[in-house]
């Protein structure tokens, strides 16, 4: 017997009922529908379901004609082995300056922009509907601040919060980040109970591999700090590391740092959960709405201009990740953050074989196995030029495939399904910028989380909401924008990539 399901996406077993549910919950645009239902994320990558989904959206979700766009096609066109990409010639892997120009903004308002008028005033306007902004909105609303509005220029998950690998760890080199991460991971473990949606935190541990002595010394210093702070991190030898991940080639590293309590989450529901929670408490989450200006008068921010009109604001929070400098410049503020592209690729779904997230701190290679069974990983690129670039490259697939198949030889016949990119939001000292803005009162900074804002957001947002409510908190002094002018940097060195 086979149940009478009407399957739309055979790869991921997505049914018509799934699409109905997605539309009912507000995921009626094609990118959100893909993320919410899983449609188009299997071996065929949407080649056999996109047409049905769009016809469905057009007819059932009233998707306007201008919004009938395909979800972003992600190479490769069909599943292709890691060994094929690993064998690409050196001249393809070698880098030339990126020929890409940033994509021009779509003229006019987004076709999916909500029609309702905006309120004339909000106590807090948060710019950026990523994990930081949404977590802050929920924390503020939970503390009774109901007049909060979040502006997001695209769909939820369009930025870096929807593009990261989902790794969460407490292994950092500065005590504050360890503390923030610990609290955040604890919150993730009870996220489903607090916010009603599964983020599938799987605590498979984080295994940092040291390929040379200097890296090992960094890991050792980290492990000592972690011990003091109550983390289970310890340095293990190659044999023990290979016991944890038997597929590793032990010749590729000399020792490892192991924390069994770190893990991976499924990033998207994190944003949806916070957004939904904030909405239920009265906050407004305005997607497909672009901020076009910040009104500053008499040294204070007064209003936020958008392509749907102006909202007066008592306080404005900049939480736009790599886009923060361009938003800050609207208020005449210069941020030192620099955007850098980071690329990621996902493999075919495999039966579980890999417990931890594995990372080479030196080369910047990292990979883990998602709850869906895919190997999701990336690799930093020392030659990557700065810029807001979210396009994919063949060079990345070649570099990643070489590194992964060398470290885990049994992956060589595994096939890659789709690649994408997001932007790191890099500060000069790899530490965030949070708190007041010197010279513009009411303008609050919440950016510069490099590539790890995702895993810090629960704690950072809680503390920020309390601090905004009047509580004292030294981190908003210590990580203030003024530190760069004053020359007191907070160097974090456990950065992947």
């Amino acid at each position, binding site marked *: 017997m086979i149940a009478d399901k009407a399957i739309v996406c055979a790869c991921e077993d997505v049914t018509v009922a799934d699409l109905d*549910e997605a539309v009912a919950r507000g995921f009626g645009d094609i990118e959100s529908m893909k993320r919410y239902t899983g449609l188009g994320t299997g071996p065929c990558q949407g080649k056999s379901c996109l047409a049905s989904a769009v*016809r469905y959206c057009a007819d059932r979700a009233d998707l306007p004609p201008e919004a009938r766009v395909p979800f972003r096609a992600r190479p490769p066109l069909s599943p292709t082995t890691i060994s094929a990409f690993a064998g690409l*010639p050196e001249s393809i892997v070698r880098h030339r300056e990126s020929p890409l120009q940033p994509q021009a903004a779509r003229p006019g308002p987004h076709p999916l922009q909500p029609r309702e008028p905006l309120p004339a005033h909000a106590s807090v306007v948060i710019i950026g509907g990523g994990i930081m902004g949404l977590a802050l909105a929920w924390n503020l609303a939970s503390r009774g601040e109901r007049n909060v509005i979040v502006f997001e220029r695209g769909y939820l998950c369009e930025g870096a919060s929807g593009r990261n690998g989902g790794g969460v760890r407490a292994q950092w080199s500065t005590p504050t980040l360890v503390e923030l991460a610990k609290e955040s991971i604890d919150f993730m473990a009870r996220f*489903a109970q607090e916010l009603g949606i599964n983020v599938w935190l799987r605590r498979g541990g984080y295994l940092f591999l040291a390929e040379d002595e200097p890296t090992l010394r960094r890991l050792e210093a980290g492990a000592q700090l972690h011990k003091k702070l109550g983390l289970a991190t310890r340095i293990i030898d190659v044999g023990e590391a290979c016991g944890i991940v038997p597929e590793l080639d032990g010749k590729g590293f000399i020792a490892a740092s192991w924390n069994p309590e770190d893990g991976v989450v499924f990033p998207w529901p994190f944003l949806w959960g916070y957004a939904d929670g904030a909405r239920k408490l009265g906050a407004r989450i305005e997607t497909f709405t672009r901020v076009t200006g910040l009104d500053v008068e008499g040294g204070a921010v007064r209003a936020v201009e958008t392509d749907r009109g102006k909202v007066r604001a008592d306080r404005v929070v900049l939480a736009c990740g790599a886009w923060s400098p361009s938003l800050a410049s609207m208020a005449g503020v210069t941020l030192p953050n620099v955007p850098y592209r980071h690329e990621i690729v996902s493999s075919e779904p495999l*039966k579980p074989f890999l417990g931890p997230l594995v990372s080479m701190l030196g080369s910047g290679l990292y990979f883990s196995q998602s709850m869906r069974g895919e190997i999701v990983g990336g690799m930093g690129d020392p030659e990557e030029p700065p810029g807001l670039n979210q396009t994919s490259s063949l060079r990345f697939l070649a570099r990643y495939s070489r590194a992964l198949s060398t470290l885990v030889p049994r992956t060589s016949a595994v096939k890659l399904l789709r690649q994408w990119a997001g932007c790191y939001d890099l500060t000069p000292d790899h530490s965030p910028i949070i708190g007041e803005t010197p010279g513009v009162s009411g303008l609050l900074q919440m950016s510069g989380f490099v590539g790890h804002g995702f895993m810090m957001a629960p704690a950072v947002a809680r503390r920020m909401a309390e601090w905004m409510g009047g509580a004292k908190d030294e981190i908003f002094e210590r990580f203030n924008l003024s530190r760069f002018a004053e020359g007191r940097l907070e160097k974090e060195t456990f950065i992947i990539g």
Partner: protein
Amino acid sequence: MTEPLSFTLDGERQKGVRGDTVASALLRSGVTTFTRSIKYHRPRGPFCFAGSCGQCLLRVDGVPSLLACRVPLEEGMRCERQNGPLGMEADVLRASDFLFPKHLDHHHLLVGSQLLGRVALEIARRLAGLGRLPDETGAPERGTVAHAQVVVIGGGPAGIAAARAAASEGAQVLLVERGRRLGGSALLEIDPEAPGPEWVARETERLGGVEVALEAEALGVYPNDSAEDGQARDKTDAPALIAIRRRQSLLALIADRVVVAAGGVSQPLPFPGVDRPGVYAARGLLELARTTGVRVGSRLCVVGEGIELLRCARALRTAGYALARVVDASGSWPFASGSDTPEPAPDLPFLRARNLRARGRPVRELRAESERIACDAVAVALPPAPLHELASAAGAQTHFSRELNGFAVSVDASGRTTVPWIFAAGRVAGSSGAAGPQSGSAAGTAAARSREKR
């Protein structure tokens, strides 16, 4: 004349012939369930026979999730079905199909309890994934770099015409075709108004000067950010970098211009049971019959929309199938039809129905409204969705069209897309059937000329 081959499926000996794919050999032996689906463990078999749908994934010689319809059968191959841990026929995990008869809402499953949530996580993790890690390790497959002034992706009528036109403008042209021969959809003889095999044979003769790469599949079109530059002799900054798979290794192709003429992809119609073994894409069955002579039974129900439905039904009849019913499902769930009302078709056992249901494993009955139609298999005939992915991933704009049943790459009259170095032709650009060659010629000419102007 046909060389017999023997291979195994889940350890049992099977027979096929040289020229079979793994999929055609299994169908020849009457095997229709190839795998269990990822979430509900529903039985699945091949659908598209074109390497695009992902319903026929098998483990072959220790490598997981290979498209059985694209793997040429070899003597002694070990094929294993996946995701049926307790046996493919009696997979008890199919219970999830009944426990969640509409759908399983994994986002909100057991959110009330941290403990139950953790249990759910452990269970979900164990059930996730499709294939096991490959048995063997392997070395990188050494790839190569090549250069071309104009690369044409797709060797159907539009691609052939584009390559010929670009070459006649003096460009050095590489024509890349995924299949074993040129012709694409023309070889299926579906559309009497469009070019057929004779056209392909004639035009292939005239491709002098065009380099043709067969069994070469384009995987991605990227802006060229590599250290490789254009050809030494003209020192152009070639803007395109195309990843092409030839067997196991990659060819990185540096090019001045790309013409995407990769055709379309067969689409299922989401009625209950469409995913069951025994429901196939109509074009897929035609391809299967053409390349291997395999037929999936003798009596077919053909379901679909518009002119594509009628033409595929006639082509299937010509290919040797009896037609139990030809069911026009225009306007059936979940969407209004984009296809024109079909021409009168007195030669076909025609029926209009909105409510469809396929029953049996493999499917032996189609229920169309109140009618129960016995058949050996169901063929789905919708217009193939344009394969926009190669061009759109590189930034080319697309537009949705109900008539085309998907997204076409937006082009002007000369096949220019919104990316200056990408051109599109044929179904990809919305010019299917008889309009294919002309759109190809225009795009090929414009691609070659735009290069000279640089």
